[in-house]
């Protein structure tokens, strides 16, 4: 799923500026599931903004709402009354939702309340790991289901670099935690599957144009287009 993290409160305050009427808009799909931008978090942020305004003597009115999916205009219609009344909308949706909102309400100031960070897998409750880079050309079939594009720190396609040590990558998370070496995992799984040869297949340079290097992508399902 798409995951995102709440922006630091002072950043949000900076984005909201002197606006008198603030609407915090949550999205009840991906960002809700990753516990960052659902109605619950929208309500919390609204309360925080009211408390801060109250403390500092600003007469700011803050309300919250949430859309089923902010990336769909039909769902935005359901909250348009509240959006209309606000001077600024703090969107807790992913980057898609924020832009969708900004496009639909073109004259409205729409600012992000979250940083969209990855396509993550919930490892356990409240822990997500990056699993997909939306590269446009999936190699998982030959890498034993482990993505080297995002799970290898260097996006290597032909095996581990020399920094792989006891199954761990030479790179650590910002918190200093160890990261699994993707190629080590790939090797272990290929062995288990009896497909070791795949490790030594020459993989040509990847076609990055199918991913973000190809410019803004567009997808059309012709057969599904309304007639």
């Amino acid at each position, binding site marked *: 799923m798409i995951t995102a993290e709440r922006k630091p409160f002072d950043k949000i305050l900076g984005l909201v500026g002197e606006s008198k009427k603030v609407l915090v808009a949550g999205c009840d799909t991906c960002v809700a599931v990753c516990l960052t931008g659902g109605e619950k978090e929208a309500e919390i942020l609204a309360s925080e903004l009211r408390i801060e305004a109250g403390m500092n003597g600003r007469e700011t009115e803050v309300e919250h709402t949430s859309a089923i999916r902010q990336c769909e205009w039909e769902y935005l219609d359901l909250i348009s009354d509240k959006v209309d009344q606000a001077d600024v909308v703090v969107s807790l949706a992913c980057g898609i939702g924020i832009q969708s909102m900004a496009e639909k309400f073109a004259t409205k100031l729409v600012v992000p309340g979250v940083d969209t960070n990855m396509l993550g897998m919930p490892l356990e409750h409240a822990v997500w790991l990056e699993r997909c880079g939306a590269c446009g050309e999936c190699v998982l079939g030959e890498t034993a289901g482990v993505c080297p594009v995002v799970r290898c*720190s*260097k*996006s*290597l*396609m*032909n*095996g*581990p*670099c*020399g*920094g*792989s*040590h*006891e*199954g761990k990558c*030479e*790179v*650590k998370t910002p918190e200093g935690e160890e990261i699994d*070496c993707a190629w*080590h995992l790939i*090797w*272990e799984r290929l062995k288990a599957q009896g497909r070791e040869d795949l*490790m*030594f297949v*020459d*993989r*040509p*340079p*990847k076609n*990055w144009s199918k991913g973000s290097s190809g410019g803004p992508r567009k997808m059309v399902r012709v057969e599904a287009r309304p007639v």
Partner: protein
Amino acid sequence: MTPEKTEITEDTVDGYKAGSNLEKILSDGRFAVTGECGPPKSADGSVIDNKAKLLKGYVDAVNITDNQTAVVRVCSLASAVVAQQNGVEAVMQVTCRDRNRLAMQADILGASTLGIKNVLCLTGDHMSFGNHRDAKGVHDLDSINLIKMFKDMRDDKKFQCGEEMTVAPRLYIGCAENPFGDPYEIRALRLKKKILAGADFVQTQCIFNLPKFKKWMEEIRSLGLHKEIKIMAGITPIKSAGMANYMKKAVPGMDVPQEIVDRIAAQEKGAPQQAEGKKLAVEMIKELAEIEGVAGVHIMAVEWEPAVPEIVEAAGLLPRPTVA
């Protein structure tokens, strides 16, 4: 004893892929010695001048690192040219971290134009180790793709996209391998993969754990790989016990046995430890030279270039041969 001046000319290429000094020595089955030179973190070209002068006559070629440990330095292409201007043949290192396939092909064409013949294809240390941690890692290609791309340019006169060129760059293509990296069992096969991609020589990660290296070499030999590629064993002289400890604990992919650390630490700090470090390097070189399939050594005296001539001499590797 002063080594003879190496002439680098365009017409000494017959039968060779690139015709570099290094290629010739290795092809002739003679024990090769390469050194390493880190370009400065400023536009001070004299640093490379000095380092090159120091090594001249003691090594067959010198590696010019490419933003080593992800720290910005003078680019490897310019530095390689300066080294060769000082009479030392360069091995230009290219990492996949900072450039995409366009930049790397452009650079290699330029390098070839300027007389660079040896190239070492690397993935590159991750940005998080360097001084621009927020940088975007390019990693368009990996090192194997890079080897293949250079080989295709050289042998098939083809760009990576398949388009043809008129004059191909003449390159002696090297790669690196870490015999101590995990998973250990794939390391020999991984070298084979690099060979298949087109590597002509390999310089290994610096070796401290000899038994483990020997085991790796056994596997290499059992696969017959030593006949397919020139293997240059990596050597790093240890300057102090502190450095030994640091490499043991903090440098990824490094395997420093405790007895090595202890051996250095048993000496007084300063000159005695340095002497012991050089002595150790010499012993290692001698032992490595005995291993079947080891075609040379690559001495990486990190910011300790003055030690190299002494070591090379003590190891009995002088004079360096001249090639026609």
